[in-house]
């Protein structure tokens, strides 16, 4: 194999590959990226056996072929090469080496045979549809903060992407929860997605997927089966196993009867929460919200380190209410609001609280209170 490729094209492809590769690997071949050159394209393939990413880049292929080389080392080299450089990759399969040349730099890297590289078995996808990058970006960006780390409830370690009924008809919905907070984000159902099985997209996949979604004009081809999900742009394909488990029935968790409504400027609210929480060093810092006629008093009382209080003007017309929350959860939820005021709907101090942006029902958050 011999090919020549623009440094920036190579960097983009290899960056995606090395981020999928696990840093601590017991199987050597999994640390490598499979480079395949054919025609006028070169593909870079990396996997951790759960996720596979395939990146295609334009190149001048002098001699077709394939080899595998450490993804991290190759990435480090390409990253350090000067911008605009032309890079030549030459594989010498007899010597088991890949030569990387750019300008006067010359590297020789150990390779492993391409036959050893595990290629993810292709899958029959039951549903194929296409969605604009900004739509998927919103679905996952607004829900991923609520993904759980708990190993025992592994089925919460991802975003549950599925088709659901909403007021205006069927929607494409992403839900994540760790039992303390929950995010439910809806988008218009793309054509062809109606029959999609619900899948739990693992945390790492959500992180990798995010890199495909930066460009507003990209259409993402989504394919879903019971066991796998695939997101593809013309140059990049991300295939992932989904979490084998049943996502809990979240609908009964979302309170429908919360009537005590508070409206507040989300940015002001977040800043105030952040300020008062400063006095406590505990990991789960509790912020107390005391609500009265159009007035919110936020307070933190940490017996060991100090106390803080701050008053905020809000729209609230119900009876007095005192309720406590984990400061971090409040901050995360408030930071999801980007256009309008944050609307909180409370019931009692022991019941889950609902938050949404203005009257927008397409992004709903639930947070569990703390005893304070």
């Amino acid at each position, binding site marked *: 194999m011999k090919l020549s490729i623009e440094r920036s094209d190579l960097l983009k492809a290899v960056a995606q590959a090395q981020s999928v590769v696990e840093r601590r690997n017991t199987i050597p071949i999994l640390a490598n990226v499979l480079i395949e050159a054919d025609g006028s394209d070169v593909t870079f393939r990396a996997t951790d056996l759960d996720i596979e990413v395939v990146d295609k880049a334009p190149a001048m292929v002098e001699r077709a072929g394939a080899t595998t080389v450490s993804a991290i080392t190759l990435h480090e080299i390409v990253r350090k090469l000067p911008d605009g450089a032309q890079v030549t990759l030459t594989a010498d399969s007899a010597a088991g080496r890949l030569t990387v040349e750019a300008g006067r730099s010359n590297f020789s890297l150990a390779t492993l045979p391409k036959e050893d590289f595990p290629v993810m078995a292709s899958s029959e996808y039951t549903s194929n549809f296409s969605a604009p990058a900004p739509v998927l970006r919103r679905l996952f960006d607004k829900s991923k903060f609520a993904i*759980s*780390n*708990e*190993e*025992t*409830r592994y089925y*919460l370690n991802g975003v549950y992407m599925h088709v659901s009924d909403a007021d205006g008809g069927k929607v494409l919905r992403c839900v994540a*929860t*760790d*039992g*303390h*907070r*929950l995010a439910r984000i809806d988008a218009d159902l793309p054509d062809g997605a109606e029959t999609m099985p619900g899948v739990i997209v693992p945390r790492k996949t959500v992180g990798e997927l995010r890199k495909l979604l930066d460009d507003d004009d990209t259409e993402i081809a989504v394919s879903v089966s019971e066991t796998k999900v695939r997101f593809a742009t013309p140059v990049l394909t991300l295939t992932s196993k989904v979490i084998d488990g049943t996502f*809990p029935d*979240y609908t009964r*968790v979302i309170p429908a009867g919360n009537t005590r409504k508070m409206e507040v400027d989300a940015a002001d609210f977040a800043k105030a929460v952040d300020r008062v929480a400063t006095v406590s060093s*505990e*990991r*789960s810092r*509790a912020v107390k919200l005391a609500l009265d006629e159009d007035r919110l008093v936020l307070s933190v009382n940490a*017996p060991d380190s100090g106390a803080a209080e701050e008053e905020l003007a809000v729209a609230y017309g119900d009876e007095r209410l005192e309720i406590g*929350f*984990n400061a971090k*959860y409040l901050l995360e939820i408030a930071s999801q609001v980007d256009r309008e005021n944050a609307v909180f709907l409370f019931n009692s101090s*022991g019941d*889950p609280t609902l938050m949404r942006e203005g009257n927008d029902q397409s992004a709903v958050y*639930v947070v*569990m*209170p*703390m*005893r*304070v």
Partner: protein
Amino acid sequence: MDCDAFYASVEKRDNPELEDKPVIIGGGRRGVVSTACYIARIRGVRSAMPTYQALKLCPDAVFVKPRMEAYAKASRQIRAMMEDLTPAIQPLSLDEAFLDLSGTERLHGAPPAVMLGRLVRRMKTELGLTGSIGLSHNKFLAKVASDLEKPRGFSVIGKAETADFLRDKPVRLIWGVGHAGQEALEKAGIRTFSDLLRWDQADLTARFGSMGTRLWHLARGEDRRPVSAHEPIKSISNETTFNEDTANPDVLDGHLWRMAEKVADRAKAKDLAGRVVTLKLKRANHSQLSRQTGLREPTQTADTVYRTARALFDQVSGEGPFRLLGCGLSHLVPAHQAGSAGDLLDPGAEQRERAERATDKIRERFGADAILKGRALR
């Protein structure tokens, strides 16, 4: 001060018939030796040895079930005697403690060696129990000294003779250098303290991490750890060896619940909550298996410990039959930091916690058996 065969000595004191018999304290047919008296030790019986092995070595041994209350009482009495000497006492267990006697000579009108001699004499005359004393200028050497002439030992390692004393001693003398540690040291050519002395501090640290730094100091007889009365508790755990190996999930579930309850009881008593739950199992062939998982918020309830350990158990339940099951709680924090946020997906959790608190109150008033979960009877 380290008591001699403490549990066994208490038993012999309380039951003179045992005086000249080999006595082994241990739990049941399947358990391990907790303490063996010196007669049994002559036959090769050691602590932590499986009971069947001890029986083979010493068929005429008298097995006694541990009476923890009696030992705890004797321990408190010894503690009171030690407190007459110094307030700086760091107990390591019921029968072993560090005492810092620095600067007490003027107060007592006698040097530490004399005061310690009086302590063991008092223990013998008033309590009928013996102990061994190791006197030195730091904790590491005092501990080493206390083991030198057991039982009824009295050893002193002075500053001037420290280097001579350590020179040819093996490094396994160091508390914390176990089997694996010895092997790692041996690979580096370190068997004795004089081997250690040949190493630079930087090299030892590079090779063995913080343990390396410690070894460098210990090789020179240096140990600056203070005798601290309040060593923080790092973990709480409990385990049980079954009378018969079992793979029966119901039986194991009952054990798991009882262990979780014991762990939670101790956490509550110490006002602590833990963030990591550990499950420990021993298979029939004695191989060990352990799993642990972190909680989002620290807990001290038996319910959470049990449910978390149960989820871990479900991952490995197929690997039975098992002979031992244990469960533990670590990464401890003060109880007021325990989880107080409810679980959206488990609305019953709060109710179960309230029930557990109520159960605790009932037990406090009417005894431990006043109210039980059905699961506890499995």
